[in-house]
């Protein structure tokens, strides 16, 4: 009798699960369509792309890598990638180090003027970057850093750190103080406690920080646009924006550059993904 009920329940449950599964698959397909369409456009011949009746699933269409080849030979995409890589690595390392120190200070010390610190970081988060574009332009012009990757790295770091510092702080807040106090009783210095005890258990938080910083820097258009003048200095978003400016947009090539610009981010996310959810949300919600 009990067995029969259990089986029936299982059956009902199974049926329901499949229903949710099918819906999820359909929804995912629809939501990811823009990415699919971009990759598809990048590998279809121009004749198939410029069609009034585009095939959503191009069965039997010949694939062509002409657009990718064209992008590699006709644009400076390799230089854009190299510049973006420099900016991304520079800004994420710099802002990760700054925010780990700042977060440690905010989480574990009674700071004089801590309210001013909090307010500054909040303002840094909320203010439109465009408001800072002009001051940064003037600042880097005076420093002689205009039109260098360094200026874009520094500008991005100033924009990213308020986010990552508060993100790290809430992560550290979630870790019991007793842990680093125990390490100090055992003879660790304050910094030793951070390095040996706090950081190793904060890998998800650090991963989320680095992921956030790298994505922000990789995708930054505003500061590159404002601070970089010569074409040799352009980053990927600048390159893409310059290709839209053309009168006749070469959609094939534009989608090829777009697809290529996603790949590094996807690789980074693949490695960070296991940490991302807990790193982003842990300690973030207290209400």
């Amino acid at each position, binding site marked *: 009798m009990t067995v029969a009920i259990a089986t029936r329940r299982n059956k009902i449950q199974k049926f329901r699960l499949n229903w949710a599964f099918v819906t999820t698959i359909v929804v995912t397909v629809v939501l990811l369509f823009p990415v699919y369409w971009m990759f598809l456009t990048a590998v279809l011949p121009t004749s198939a792309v410029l069609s009034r009746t585009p095939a959503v699933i191009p069965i039997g269409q010949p694939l062509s890598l002409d657009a990718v080849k064209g992008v590699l030979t006709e644009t400076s995409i390799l230089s854009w990638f190299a510049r973006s890589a420099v900016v991304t690595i520079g800004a994420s390392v710099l802002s990760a180090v700054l925010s780990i120190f700042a977060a440690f200070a905010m989480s574990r010390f009674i700071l004089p003027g801590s309210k001013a610190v909090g307010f500054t970081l909040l303002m840094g988060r909320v203010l439109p*970057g*465009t408001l800072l574009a002009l001051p940064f332009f003037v600042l880097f012009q005076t420093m002689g850093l205009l039109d260098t990757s360094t200026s874009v790295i520094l500008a991005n770091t100033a924009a990213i750190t308020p986010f990552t510092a508060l993100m790290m702080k809430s992560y550290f807040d979630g870790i019991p103080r007793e842990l680093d106090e125990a390490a*100090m009783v055992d003879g660790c210095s304050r910094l030793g406690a951070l390095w040996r005890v706090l950081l190793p258990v904060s890998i998800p938080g650090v991963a989320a920080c680095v992921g956030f910083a790298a994505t922000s820097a990789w995708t930054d258009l505003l500061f590159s*646009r404002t601070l970089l003048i010569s074409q040799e200095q352009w980053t990927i978003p600048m390159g893409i924006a310059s290709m839209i400016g053309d009168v006749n947009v070469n*959609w094939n090539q*534009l989608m090829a550059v777009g697809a290529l610009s996603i790949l590094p981010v996807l690789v980074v996310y693949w490695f960070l993904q296991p940490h991302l959810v807990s790193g982003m949300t842990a300690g973030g919600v207290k209400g």
Partner: protein
Amino acid sequence: MSITERQNKYDVAHTPGNSKAQPVRRRKMRKANSPWIGVALMAPTMLWVGGTLVFAVVLLLSLSLRDVGLGPLDKVLAAPLSLVNYAEVLTNADTWRSFGISVVYVAGSTAIPFAIGLGTALLLNQKMPGQRLLRTLVLVPWAVPGVTATIAFMWMMAPTYGVVNYILRTLGIISTDINWFADDSLALLAVIAPTSWKAFPFFTLMLLAGLQSVGKEQYEAASMDGAGKLLKFRYVTLPALSPFIFISVIFNMMYAFREFDFIYASTRGGPAGATETIAVRIYNQAFERFDLGSAAALGILTFALIGAVVFFLVRKKFKGSLEGVL
């Protein structure tokens, strides 16, 4: 000092009953009470982030008080003080139009991804095969650079060869092609599309975390009381979800307000200013129209507005729930 030396020192201090450990221990404990290490650790961030903000405010304030629109910076800064820029900005109808566009843009780019995010979170909270893969896939738009998302949508919504117009034509909804990004009554909707698409995974993530915080017992208890699916959602899920909803909405609104990439890459604020939000207008005034004074005045006014909102949020009602996320 090498790692091994440090390790040795650590081990020496760590060994119980080691006479050398005592002085080390006492010294470290005294250090812990001093805030100066904290100040030193905080200093680089405050110097760069705070210094930048202070410099920005001082420069913008100074620029905004000069009655010179065009010209090299040193000449502008040498001009006599005047409030004419503020009067100009506050009485200019375009400023208020931009403000209205910002409100619509922020509302649209929050409401749409919230709805998609809630739907996907509810779906992904169900047990199903391939759960982890599906969760990762749904988060993909989040990882797509804003400029890349923008060009993907510009291509999909292109007038002649775009797939969106093709689908609408096939379904018989439209007879002539729509030029989404160039039509001044549709351009705002067109830029909201890629913004929302990139933003929804953030809601999925936050709301999924919220859904997972609801204990099974709560649903079981509701079932005992005879609650159906809808009642359970209303009286168990929603209350548990509300802090997550509140925080993700506030966070996303701030994000949308400062947004630049989507709009600048596609329309640059056009056509005819139809997509010129406040954030984009500040940029265009300075770098497209070279009206430094009015760009600075608008910047200062925005700064004051946001400062007041942040101050209110931190001070008043939401202190506890916003800490950490803001």
